[in-house]
């Protein structure tokens, strides 16, 4: 007994010694170049790229997020859900120039611009969030409406978490996903994850880009050509056809009336599903797309766009309406 213990301890000690000696760091570390030389996205044939049909998302989070997205109880007076302003049937916005709550409360503060509700579709492809790009991540943006007094109006997280903990289904789902007590981060995470799932692939133009050349008419293709030649594409490009840089609203002259609080730079908005997201611009001041196109030509190119060109561009823009859950988006 005693002897075996001694031998065992001796062996253990030898192993420790050997390991500690052999583990001493080497001066010449070998860099794994293979790991570092990941391929970066390279140039495409076109500046616009199609929306990917598959996304790498946690399906459990998406499902839970969907429930929360539609739950009015997340607002302080149980009147609003995320979906109230981001109607997935209305192109991901509310179809109003300004959010309904803001209009109801008649808020008009000179230093505070009330923005049009942007579409929530394809929001995951934006490089920053919000008209001004003040929120750098989707998660940051998700929290804002929950506590905005003009929106869902919560004072703090505890009221939200208390409510969620009361619902056994939620509690169970959170437990299944995170295996820990519910937290604000988890709530943000599931809603953000759901937001990322809101993509509209397979628009006719995307199908064209993916090689179905007959999905666009000649007329619409002429519109795409004008979209490029008239310089629209210099800001509206990438997978989201916009949403990847800041730009002045009006190069040659401001589009909107200016005051000392007016923002100088806006995040270039997406043109995806643009036909469905009227009214247009950050203040929802323009109702028709035709007018919006003319306005853009006037201010960005100092050009009175000829009517036929406008029509052609409009025709092209209408090909950008995609499918949500394999159903083409439409007005109602």
């Amino acid at each position, binding site marked *: 007994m005693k002897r075996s213990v001694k031998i065992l301890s001796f062996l253990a000690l030898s192993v420790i010694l050997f390991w500690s000696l052999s583990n001493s760091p080497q001066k010449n570390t070998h860099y794994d170049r293979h790991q570092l030389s990941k391929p970066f996205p390279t140039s495409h044939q076109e*500046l616009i790229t199609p929306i990917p049909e598959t996304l790498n998302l946690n399906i459990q989070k998406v499902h839970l997020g969907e429930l929360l997205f539609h739950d009015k109880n997340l607002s302080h007076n149980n009147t609003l859900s995320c979906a109230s302003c981001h109607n997935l049937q209305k192109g991901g916005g509310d179809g109003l120039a300004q959010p309904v709550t803001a209009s109801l409360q008649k808020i008009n503060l000179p230093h505070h611009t009330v923005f049009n509700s942007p579409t929530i579709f394809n929001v995951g492809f934006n490089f920053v969030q919000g008209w001004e790009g003040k929120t750098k991540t989707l998660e940051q943006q998700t929290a804002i409406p929950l506590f905005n007094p003009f929106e869902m109006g919560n004072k703090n997280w505890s009221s939200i978490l208390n409510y969620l903990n009361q619902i056994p289904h939620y509690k169970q789902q959170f437990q299944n996903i995170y295996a820990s007590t519910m937290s604000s981060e988890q709530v943000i995470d599931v809603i953000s994850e759901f937001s990322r799932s809101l993509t509209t692939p397979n628009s006719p133009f995307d199908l064209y880009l993916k090689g179905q050349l007959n999905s666009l008419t000649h007329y619409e293709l002429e519109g795409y050509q004008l979209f490029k030649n008239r310089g629209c594409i210099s800001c509206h490009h990438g997978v989201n056809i916009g949403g990847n840089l800041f730009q002045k609203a009006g190069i040659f002259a401001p589009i909107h009336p200016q005051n000392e609080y007016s923002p100088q730079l806006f995040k270039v908005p997406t043109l995806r599903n643009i036909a469905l997201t009227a009214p247009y611009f950050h203040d929802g001041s323009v109702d028709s797309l035709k007018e919006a196109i003319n306005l853009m030509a006037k201010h960005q190119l100092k050009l009175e766009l000829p009517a036929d060109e406008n029509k052609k561009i409009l025709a092209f823009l209408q090909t950008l309406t995609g499918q949500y859950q394999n159903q083409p988006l439409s007005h109602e």
Partner: protein
Amino acid sequence: MNKSLSHLFANYKQWIIIVASLFLILFVFQKTLNPLLEDRNNILSHSFLIHELQYSILKTISNNPLKNNQSFDTLNHQILRLKKTLHSLKNNQAIQTFPKLSEKLNHLMNTADQQKTLIEQFKTNYSVLQNSLYFYPTAFNICTQSITNSQQPNTKWLQKQLKNTFISGLLNRQNVNTNQLSQLDKHISTLESQQNLSTECQTFVAHSRLLSEYSPKVHKINHQLSNLSIDDKIHNFYTQLESSTSQIMTKNQTYYLIIVIFSVFLLIYIGITLTRLFRSNQYLKETLNTLSQRQTLFESLLKASSAITQSKNKQALYQNICNTATQKDLFEACWIGEVTPQKTLIPVACSGEGKHLIKKLVIPLNSSSIEHNGTILECYHKKKPVISNHYPKRMAQTTWANLIQKLGIQGNASIPILMNNQVVAVLIVYTRKNNYFTDEYCVFLEQLASDISIALERFYAISEQEKYQQNLSISSIAFESHEAILITDNNANIIRSNKAFTTLTGYSQQEVLGRSPSLLKSELHTKSFYKDLWQSIFDTGIWQGEIWNRKKDGSLYPCRQSISSVLDSKGNISHYISHAFDLTKDKQAQREINRLNWLDKLTNLPNRSLLIDRLTLALSKPGRCYSFLYLININRFKLFNESLGHSAGDELLIKIARQLQSLNIKQVDNLEISRIGNDEFSISCLTKIKNINKAHQQAETIANYIQAWLGRPFVIQEQTAIIDTSIGVTLFSPCNKTAEILLQEANIALHNAKTLAKQTAQSTIQFYKQAIHEQSKNRLKLENQLRTALTNQEFTLQYQPQINLITGNIIGVETLIRWQQNDGSLIPPNAFIPALEESGLIIPVGIWIIEEAITQAQILHKIRPDITISINLSAIQFNDKNLIENVHKILKKSKYPANLLEFEVTESLLMSDIEEAIKKLNAFADLGIKIAIDDFGTGYSSLAYLKRFPVSKLKIDKAFIDEITHTDSSDPAIVLATIQMTKTLKITTIAEGVEEQSQLNLLKTMGCDEIQGYFFSKPLSPDDLTHFIQAHQ
């Protein structure tokens, strides 16, 4: 488990040291663990990734992305990755612990933030620029078209201006330099100065102006970006990382050294502890071994003890001890040797390996040569156990060395077995194991030896007791001697008398019990005589003298009487014993004189007369064993006498006599030394050797030995004298030769030896050759003749009648064999019967005798059907296994009544193996055959045994009868005692060799039942016997 736990805690000091050292090592080792070292690879890979990303970002920007169909998505993605990577580094614990490193990282991040802002600016401005560039050709076209349509006078100039502006605008975008830019500005200014420009052209000019404004802006941003030198920051971070790492490494070197030192210390400590442990383990093992050895020894000792107590005799004891010693591999071999009177050690019991070798050993104990370097001799002389664990080495120089090596013996121990402080035997054990004899074994062996000694003493005590009892029975017989014995108590009242007393005085024991011996007073002696008598008894304890006493019938008799007092343990007189010898019958005095005449005055050795007497006796002894007679003459004794004087000569003779007396020859039974002449000695040896050649060889060996014995130097009158001897030897066995002839033969041999000695001046030995030769020749011839005698029917039987003294009738006949050779010569029985026995012919001849005698008896029975036929059985016949069966067959075949058959056996034959004899005799008795004891009185005459034998008849030897009528002989008393004794045992007595009437009368009065002898009839042939019986009737 509890026990082992407590054992574990018992050594808590060691454990504390080990655990403490381990903790120390682990503590120091923990110190060497630095997050930076662990994360170094990770950090390095991140740094590398940052570098790569940075490179990609700059490349993307400088590559005119939109122009090359590269959307800002790529750029955004790269920036995001850069940001994430930087943040993961920022969150790295290892970096946080190093402020310098953290600082460098912060620098890097700040620069990255600056870069990001610049990139955003780049994106905005670049896309504005790109917007105009996309539209520029179209704007130009629209503008020129509008001019062409407007038909203005300076159209051509304007067109040229517009064209120049367009080209510079495009060039400016491609390659920004101050000259071109100023040229573009000039063109634009020129165009702006034109008042009537169309809207379309104004748009073109506006775009041109935008190009000229934004191109430098974008270039400036590019320039700023490249000036941020983010690579340097990355490099700084990397350098700091390396320097921090090497700092830690240097520190760790010290820690590793400490760990190694402590580990070595711990290893050494554990090594020492383990060594101690192994050592104590070894000790435990050895202790266990010793204990098991002791147990084995203890068990063996127990066995030996039980063997000792259970052994019935010495031999069994020795054997049991040997067996015990070789059991359980205790010893390879064990033997016990007994010390013989000749001072040699002879194995008496042995067991184990090499038994056959041991059995042959004879170890002389008085030798001191190198051959006897062994433990036995040392043990014998020191009387102490001698143990050798290096036996082969000890015995290396001896002849035993090879044998010891062959058998692989490593150790040997010899232990003396003492009795009365004398070594009587030696216990010897051998082992093949190295260093086997430890103290335990020595104690064991000594204990064994002492146990044996005790057992031997017990045996000795038992034998002493037996002897004592025997003595008692002898005493009782002796008491019943022909001396009249009286025993009185201290008051002189008679308490016992013997038969001789009754015979002598006529008083029976009952008549004298309680009375005073004075009733025997003859009144012939004076009172003073008795007074002196008693005085002598009181003073000296004994009185001896001649005295006259009165018998019961009043007659007086002279007797030699001795009265002695017996003292009790306190020294007081308890009894008086009186022996009275009837002087009228005493020849003792005369014999005493004779005996005195038979001793040599000088040496006290027997003289020639006694030698002759003894030789005669030896010659007449039955048996065919050879005896040797040596005559020893001292060469040149006369010269010695003359030179040193007669007293010196006498001294030499005495010393030679003593030397001869100290001779110890174990091969012979009896050694008698005599001085038969002035310088002549003789030695006669009796042996058991029957083979003439062997005898001759033995005789020669002994002769040499004697000569060597006498060859030792004598110290005479302080001078050393060495003598030469001549020895003449003759061999003889009982025969017709007389002692004188024998001496003559020896003398002839001695004469030859002397003659030879004179020639060689050496000690010499000569044999009397002719005698040996002739004797052996005669014996061979005789044997050959005997072989044919039976088939040639040369044997005949004669019968001597036996007479009942009371009725005078013939009651039986004794069968006697006669050998008449074909040439008519009659050979006496004592000449051929020994030869018959020796050759084994006695068996068939014996059967023939029985058959023949029975045939004859059956003829006789027609006349006298009650006659018993008596046949002699020799020892060899009697010991024949088939005898009983053969006799039974003959009886069955002849239908002869067994009760009329009698076998005569001699007393000595029965005594050689009493138990076997009893068995045989009982078997005969069961058949109905009678047994007679022949030659009674010549041998042991043990009356005690007579009771045990189924004897029906006792034959009193002729020797007693011859002198029975002589009044001065003790024989009639013996005969009478025998007859009276046999009467009480209901055994018939028959007296042999009765030749005279007086003998017959005396025997009749003594109460003898039967007689046989010449007085009545000599042995008769069958025909004569028939006539004799018919006549007698």
